């Protein structure tokens, strides 16, 4: 079979569409123990901020039915050390690198974009705007079309050159298409859908919230129907925008589902915690599935569930 598994996001080519999800693979230094990083389409690094961050105190996680909550609080070394240690190492691995950035103010995003504009060997920038905006009562940037736009516009103005900007959106909004349109307007070349949903677990022994910060982000298979819906809606609203889909993908079938909904690439998050080799098996299973369904290239599958006939008549 001569199946074309390549995909591209705003002009950048990736030999296959399986990426890691930000925050679920560190900078790859542990996963490389299990597989060569260049076997994946790209490594999306943990969201990095300007300064070193301790993150939150523990407990930082709670398992939930078919999912988990996390509240890491963006622990990380800050952009300087990250550029010094992680990027060169990833380049040495031959990995395609997507750097995820996060800020607390619009200016933070601008600063991070400037720090990254001249770094060579990056494939794209993912902008995590699911962060509390300290200048706006801590409301998350991604929850409001204006603040989402401001953050992305700041990156756009400062990034220069060709590096594609992928805006990562939160599903915790009334109208995700409106947010998507707003960030595309502001210059996003692609979208990453979806970040975690805000959830809480109360420990019935201590009778208090289980996580030290009370709430956390819900990820894993539990949220897959939300991810599929969000991707499908945004793909319908903005047919041409590249989408990196994620949310509960655990096997090739799940990845196929998100691609049918409209994803151009798939990030693997929580599944890696259950199985360090998850991304690799998903990649293999997805390719087989596409071939077995008679597709000759991955690109044909993207958004295939939107074709008109299929949604009007019922198959048996």
């Amino acid at each position, binding site marked *: 079979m001569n199946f074309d598994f390549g995909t591209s996001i705003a002009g950048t080519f990736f030999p296959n569409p399986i990426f890691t999800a930000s*925050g*679920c*693979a*560190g900078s790859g*230094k*542990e*996963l490389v*123990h*299990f597989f060569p990083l260049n076997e994946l389409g790209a490594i999306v690094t*943990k969201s990095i901020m300007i*300064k*070193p*961050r*301790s*993150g*939150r*105190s*523990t*407990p*930082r*996680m*709670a*398992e939930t*039915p*078919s*999912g*988990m909550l*996390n509240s*890491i609080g963006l*622990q*990380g*070394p*800050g952009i300087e050390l990250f550029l010094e240690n992680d990027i060169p190492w990833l380049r040495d691995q031959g990995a395609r690198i997507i750097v995820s950035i996060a800020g607390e103010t619009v200016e933070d995003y601008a600063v991070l974009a400037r720090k990254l504009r001249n770094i060579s060997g990056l494939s794209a920038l993912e902008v995590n705007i699911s962060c509390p905006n300290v200048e706006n009562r801590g409301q998350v940037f991604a929850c409001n079309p204006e603040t989402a736009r401001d953050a992305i516009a700041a990156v756009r103005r400062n990034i220069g050159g060709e590096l594609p900007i992928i805006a990562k959106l939160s599903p915790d909004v009334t109208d995700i298409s409106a947010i998507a349109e707003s960030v595309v307007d502001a210059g996003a070349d692609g979208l990453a859908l979806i970040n975690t949903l805000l959830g809480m677990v109360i420990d019935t022994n201590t009778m208090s919230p289980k996580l*030290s*910060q009370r709430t956390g982000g819900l990820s*894993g*298979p539990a949220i897959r129907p939300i991810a599929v819906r969000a991707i499908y809606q945004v793909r319908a609203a903005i047919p041409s925008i590249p989408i990196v889909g994620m949310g509960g993908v*655990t096997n090739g079938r799940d990845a196929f589902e998100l691609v049918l909904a409209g994803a151009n690439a798939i990030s693997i998050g*929580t*599944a*890696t*915690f*259950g*199985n*360090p*080799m998850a991304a690799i098996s998903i990649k293999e299973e997805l390719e087989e599935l596409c071939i077995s369904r008679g597709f000759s290239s991955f690109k044909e599958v993207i958004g295939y569930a939107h074709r008109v006939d299929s949604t009007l008549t019922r198959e048996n």
Partner: protein
Amino acid sequence: MINSRATQLDAEIISNKRVGSYNHMVFAVNELAGACRPGNFVAIAVGGQSSSMILRRAFAIYRATMRADGVGLLELVVAPQGSGSKWLSSQSIGQKVNVIAPLGTAFGIPTEPVSALLVGGGYGSAPLFALAETLKSRGCRVDMVLGASTAGKIYAPLEGKRSVNSLTITTDDGSAGTTGRVSEVLPALIDQHQTDVIYSCGPMAMLEAITAISQQAGIVHQCSVEESMACGIGVCMTCVLPVKGDDGVIRMTRTCIDGPVMDGNRVLWTRSREIPDGVWGK
């Protein structure tokens, strides 16, 4: 860095016996048994296919041995607490489970014979017996203290007891040994045995109490900590503790790869839901 010998494989359960409040379980593995050191842990997928439990469960390695026929044996002590451990301990012989092992750091073994005091709380005794054997074989004196809420929660098999010079037991309810907590009997034992190094494993509150005692006594304290772990392989950052590094900087440190065995005197034990002052990046 992740334990360089970490391997993922399906392991068959070849024994599963109830011992007090625990299940002693034996798994058939390959050469990885030879790669396990006292203090290392394993991460096991629970619930079978289409399980709602998506995360692995961590278990300290009780013993890991290679049989003459080349089969490796991995032994664990499982406390059936929540849904994952209950599922695991209810699996029958012949079932297979997916295991990643060995993971994490091991107890440091002194190059000279020393007087070692091993302290375990509940199933925290599990990794201490293999450690005791190793220490013994290096000519160390090995005293052991095991504590639990009640007698059934003391895990101290006969063959394990053989490798220690003395064994002290404490229970909160007095159903076995001395009534009280391990920390209450420690100072006298340290004195009596001229302890050079304490090795411990058990609930975080116990490790904190032992740290205070070891600092007081000015002796080394290697403890195996237990934080909630989502991945066990260093990629998720859920399992962290504030720990002082060689450079004096206190960082939120992953207990799955820079632990579970850590220098107790370097851990900033805290019960507050705030990051302690002085932590890098606070």
